[in-house]
């Protein structure tokens, strides 16, 4: 898919010793600017990590680095559960929701993508245009209605309700996977069909094995959705019991005016703990993210 960067010109390596002074100043300036920018970009992250080890509970407005370092914020996150903080429960809740969402929406996305990419049927264009049209409405406009529907079904404040909200209309997010399927050579599909394979067999035995990158991308992004999302969970979860919250709702409530001065360091510790698995998944996904956005238009 991607072209390797052009191999380094051997002439360049030889020349390096007698480098043009103008180029050299350019290099130094460029590296300095990059270092400065990276430093600026990382300031809040460093602050997050440092504060999570701070012995002071609230917001320390006088010092960037904590006076006394401690691990107690992490320990208390797991040992002390009260009406504001219940990190183990939040983590479990979010994890359960994420697993189910991941399975359902991956299936939905791949199914829709295959139908739209590899099959030709009446109404295909119309369905795709409908998808584009639906995407132009603000996503949570519908949430008010969905909230009351879930309430009628007694599903608010439950895992099932959240899973339905996240995975229910996930089929609309098929475009990236479709872009990938579009690049798979038609001749392979035709050959399989000549050998007597049905569409279902082509889907399972030809397309899916060839689509590992996009499956990884879909799985990870579906799994990350409940971890990253704040707005939907904030609408669906109205419970006052801290054990019912997800990570996003819980951490947000920790910073409520009445609790920020006792929980700020623990918020940071929680933030770090959530960020670690997400970062790892994100770095894996990053490569596919680029390919997905630049889409089929870039073919190396």
């Amino acid at each position, binding site marked *: 898919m991607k072209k390797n960067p052009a191999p380094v010109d051997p002439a360049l390596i030889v020349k390096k010793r007698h480098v043009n002074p103008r180029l050299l100043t350019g290099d130094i300036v*460029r*590296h300095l600017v990059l270092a400065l*920018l990276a430093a600026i970009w*990382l300031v809040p992250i460093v602050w997050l990590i440092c504060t999570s080890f701070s012995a002071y509970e609230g*917001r320390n407005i006088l010092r960037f680095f904590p006076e006394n370092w401690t691990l107690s914020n992490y320990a208390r996150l797991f040992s002390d559960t009260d009406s504001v903080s219940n990190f183990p429960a939040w983590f479990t809740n979010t994890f359960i929701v994420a697993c189910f969402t991941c399975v359902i929406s991956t299936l*939905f996305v791949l199914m829709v993508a295959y139908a739209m990419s590899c099959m030709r049927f009446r109404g295909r264009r119309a369905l795709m245009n409908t998808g584009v049209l639906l995407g132009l409405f603000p996503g949570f*406009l*519908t949430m008010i209605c969905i909230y009351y529907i879930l309430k009628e079904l007694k599903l608010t404040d439950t895992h099932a309700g959240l899973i339905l909200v996240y995975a229910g209309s996930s089929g609309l997010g098929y475009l990236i996977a479709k872009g990938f399927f579009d690049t798979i050579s038609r001749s392979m599909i035709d050959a399989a069909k000549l050998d007597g394979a049905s569409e279902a067999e082509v889907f399972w035995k030809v397309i899916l094995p060839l689509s590992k990158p996009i499956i990884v991308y879909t799985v990870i992004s579906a799994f990350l959705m409940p971890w990253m999302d704040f707005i939907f969970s904030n609408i669906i979860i109205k419970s006052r019991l801290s054990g019912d919250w997800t990570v996003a709702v819980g951490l947000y409530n920790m910073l409520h005016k009445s609790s920020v001065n006792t929980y700020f360091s623990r918020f940071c510790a929680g933030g770090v703990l959530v960020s670690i698995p997400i970062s790892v998944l994100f770095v894996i996904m990053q490569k596919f993210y680029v*390919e997905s956005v630049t889409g089929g*238009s870039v073919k190396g």
Partner: protein
Amino acid sequence: MKKRKHDGIRGFLPVRAAKSWLAGDAFVKLTPLLWGVGYIRRRQFVKGFLAILFEVVVVMFSISYGFPNIAKFGTLGTVRRETVYNPATMKNEVNQYDNSFLILLFGLVGLIVLAVAVIILMRIVAEARELQQKSEQGAHISTFREDIRELLNQKFHITLLSLPSLGIIVFTIIPLIFMILVAFTNYDQQHMAPTELFTWVGLDNFKRLFNNSLSETFGYSFGKVLGWTLVWAFFATFTCYFGGIALSLMINNKRTRVKKLWRTLFVICIAVPQFVSLLLVRNFFADTGIVNTFCSNVGITDFLKSIGLVGAYLDHIPFLTEAGWAKFMIILINFWIGVPYLMLIATGVLMNIPTEYYESAKIDGANALQTFNRITMPFMLSVTGPYLITSFIANINNFNVIYLLTQDVYFTMDTKLAASNAKDIDLLVTWLYRLTNDYYNYKMASVIGILVFIVCAVFTLLAFNYTFRKGREGRFQ
């Protein structure tokens, strides 16, 4: 593969169904009464049974939910909820009241179910007639097993799409139509179901958007919020776009060392979930936050006071608490979040620019600026053009940045905005969100939602029209 036989008589479904019914035998004529009878006559027992089962479900739903609610659809209910003392049981009892919300919802669902059922029935009639013709000609009539096999082959798209479509219909389309309908009712805090009734009010809510009087400030607020939404979307999109390209050009320069390290440093910032990083940054820049302490110690606060950027009566820089500063900071913080994304995308695109372009430019004696203007930028634009459009739309709907940075922190000074629950720094979507979540003003929220859709649709159409008319996408392929 053999084409299906009835492909030849494809036509407008109602016409086809009517013709089939008129021409059909007794079993086809009976089909609208007992849906599966046409199948069962031709020995398609499973299909016939399923059709009858479907009919029973539709009829039962319509009788218990559909029709009663569709009947009240015109008024959305007339009987208010009341608690009456019942002398017989010596208890307070709730009367048989109308719940406008459920009437609207089940009425809508009932209508959709009826419409779908009618379409399916018409197909069944047409199919029953085909089966009759086939059996008269002595042609093969497919068994249930063959039908299933077809669903995994030629009709595989139906198998694939049915569940996801059901999800989209239930969780997007029905709620969306519901909310569009709410825009034409008076559903708000004074008319909350189930205790109160709400009803149709026609275009009144839309008229309020153009009203601007002392008591009615929605027109004023809408103008201001829409203006800021567009300004924000413009700056948020283009600052990040060019910032990201500049950064990726620096990192991907042939002579930059440890490219991967630089890239990773920036990616770390976006791997932290937004609700963590934004809530953190909000405390970072709080009125009594660490940045303010630093600025006043170093003397920046006094300097800004002396040039008039910070009010003389303040002892801190109002980063997120004063309209002008907050707008500037929001765009700046969004730049912090957005640039690494664009850096990633731009890197991907840059690596795909064919090196021959640069080589020939070099031979022609082009300098760095010319190469950038003539090769890098046009290529970049042609590949990321669609992304720019979607990103502009996404920024119009960018809820996270504004809400997480300013909720509970920013309070508007503008009484006219406050009267309609808006703030200077609100986007249409954050305003919509607060109207529903905090103020239960569903009718106006729905109106705003429809207008957001119109704004997005206009920009999408303009942008796509522009890209396709110029035929720009073909230039580098």
